[in-house]
Every structure is written in C-alpha cells, then in structure tokens.
C-alpha cells in the first residue's frame, strides 16, 4: 500500500459525489414541490420502490464520502499535532459510519414493515 494518503482519488470522489448529491437533491426538491407524498403510507411506499431505495442509499453513501473528504481536508489543513489529528479523524469516521448505518436501517425497515 502507498505511504501517501490519496490525492487524486479523494479529489475525484469529492467531485463525483457532489454531482450526484446535487442531482438527487434537485430531484427530491422537485418531488416535494410538485408531487409531495401525503401521509406516512405514501412515504413508505415511495422508499420501498427498489429504484428509489437504491438511489437513496447511493445518496447516503455519497454524502458520507463527500463529508469524509471535506472534513479530512479541513483537519489536514488546520490540525497539526498528529495525535489530535488521528483522534479527530477517527471520531469523524465513527460519526459518519453511525449516521450511515442509522439512515440505511431506516431504509431497510421501510421495506420490512
């Protein structure tokens, strides 16, 4: 494995996820504006649709990856002491994974209930 943390990969990932997040958010806003679901049953049915479910999962993963690259950049720029930087990076990873698992769990539950 390379000794260096990634430069190009992280940069491309940040841009690609930004694109997807932008498009998905626009679609989401469109739905909420022009054809909003009425009541929980309609919400659930919407997210239970395999296409929408997968698109939403990809959205969640995109946000997590995008946030990871962005926060990593900020910490690399501003936090110089190695111990503190590693601790903060680890906390960010844990926080992001927790958020991701929680969001995914909601999506899976929607399909089960």
């Amino acid at each position, binding site marked *: 494995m390379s000794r*260096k*943390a*990634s*430069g*190009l990969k*992280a*940069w*491309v990932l940040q841009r690609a996820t930004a694109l997807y997040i932008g498009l998905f958010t626009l679609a989401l806003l469109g739905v909420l504006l022009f054809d909003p679901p009425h009541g929980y049953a309609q919400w659930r049915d919407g997210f239970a649709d395999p296409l929408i479910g997968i698109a939403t999962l990809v959205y969640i993963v995109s946000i997590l990856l995008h946030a990871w690259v962005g926060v*990593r*950049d900020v910490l*690399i*720029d*501003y936090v110089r002491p190695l111990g503190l930087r590693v601790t903060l990076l680890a906390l960010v990873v844990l926080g992001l994974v927790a958020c991701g698992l929680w969001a995914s769990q909601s999506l899976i539950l929607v399909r089960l209930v």
Partner: protein
Amino acid sequence: MKFLVSRYNPDRDAKPHMQAFEVEVWRGMMLRDALLEIKRQDESFAFRHSCGEGVCGSDGVNVNGSNRLACITPVADLKAPVEIRPFPGRPIIRDLVVDMSQFYAQYKAVEPWLVREDPMPEQEILQSPAERDRLDGLYECILCGCCSTACPSFWWNPDKFHGPQALLTAWRFLADSRDQATEHRLDALEGPYRLFRCHTIMSCVEACPKGLNPTRAIGHIKQLMLEKAI
C-alpha cells in the same frame, strides 16, 4: 501622504510594530519610490528592490492587505494611510525583508527544467506555433512570491504544499511539447499535500502582478492526472 511601515529588528524587537512616515507624493510616483524616500528619512529601514520595473520580482510587499510589487504600484491608487507589511506567513529577517527559502525549495521540487528521454538533437527542438502558444501565461512568472504568500494553503503547509508559484511552473513544463517527463512529474505531485492542498481559493490569481492564473494551471494539472489515471 501618510505611510505606516512594519518595522522589525531581530536584535532589538520582540515582535514587529508599525512606524509612521510622511512622504511627499509626486505625479507618477510608485510605491518603491515612496519606500526609497522612507529609507532617506531613516536609513535603518530595510527592504528588497532591484530593477524598478516589475521584472526582477524583488520588491514584493503587502500593501493595504494585498501582495503587490512596489515598483509597479502607483501611489495614487492607494488609500491613505498606506499600510506596508512584509509578505504574510514568511519568517521576517528585518523590516520588509522575509526569508523565502521554503518558496524556492518548493520551486526546485517541481524540477523546473526540460527533461528529455530521447537523445538530444544536433540543433534546437522545434515547436509548432500552437505548441509554443501553450506556454503563454506560464513562462512569464518572475518568482516574486506574491501568489504563494497570499495563499492560505501555503500559509498552513509551506513545507509540504508546493504553492501556486511552483504549481504554475509544474504545469509550464507539463504543457511543454519538448518535455518528456510527464508521468514522472505527475507521480511526484500525487498525495494529499503537494498539489491537492489547493482548494481553489484563487488569492493567487488576485495577487499576481503579471496577471497570470495559477489556479487555472492547477486545474489543468488535475485534469491531466485524471486523463492519465483512467
């Protein structure tokens, strides 16, 4: 006209302080002329300068918050009192004179010379007019340091991030049709620091007294990296 100049003598002062000078302004006066006048008033005042016409890149200073070349900055364009400080982020040697060693080390690190794998031809290596045009906006850099010392990413990581000046130079050689070290140059720029600390803040573009665009050059490098990676 009132000038506030940053003074620092490492033998006497714990930290830099501002000193006021009154300078009589004449028509067409450049900031370098004002600094020379201040030096006439107080000969212990130190600043770098040489050609006086924006070619040597010696007299870069921070004027009212922006990095400029004193010799091509008309005093008439400046708001009084004119605050003159050394380049931000660089260790101060004395008054407006700063230590640019890290800046030059980053320049050296991008190997600012043509690399040929093929045997050298008997005569010059020819370029088409279009190939030569690609170097416009790149070769004009005079290494004054206005851009890199205006770059927040360079302030935070001057030891690891190349900075806008060195990256403009890196692209100047990547873009050169005569250079044959593209892969080597791109490999050397990989990692989170050397190239990718650039967050397109674009302070460098605003600071460059020659009107060059390091941010665009950095964008070209990233694009070329991506092309070579997929």
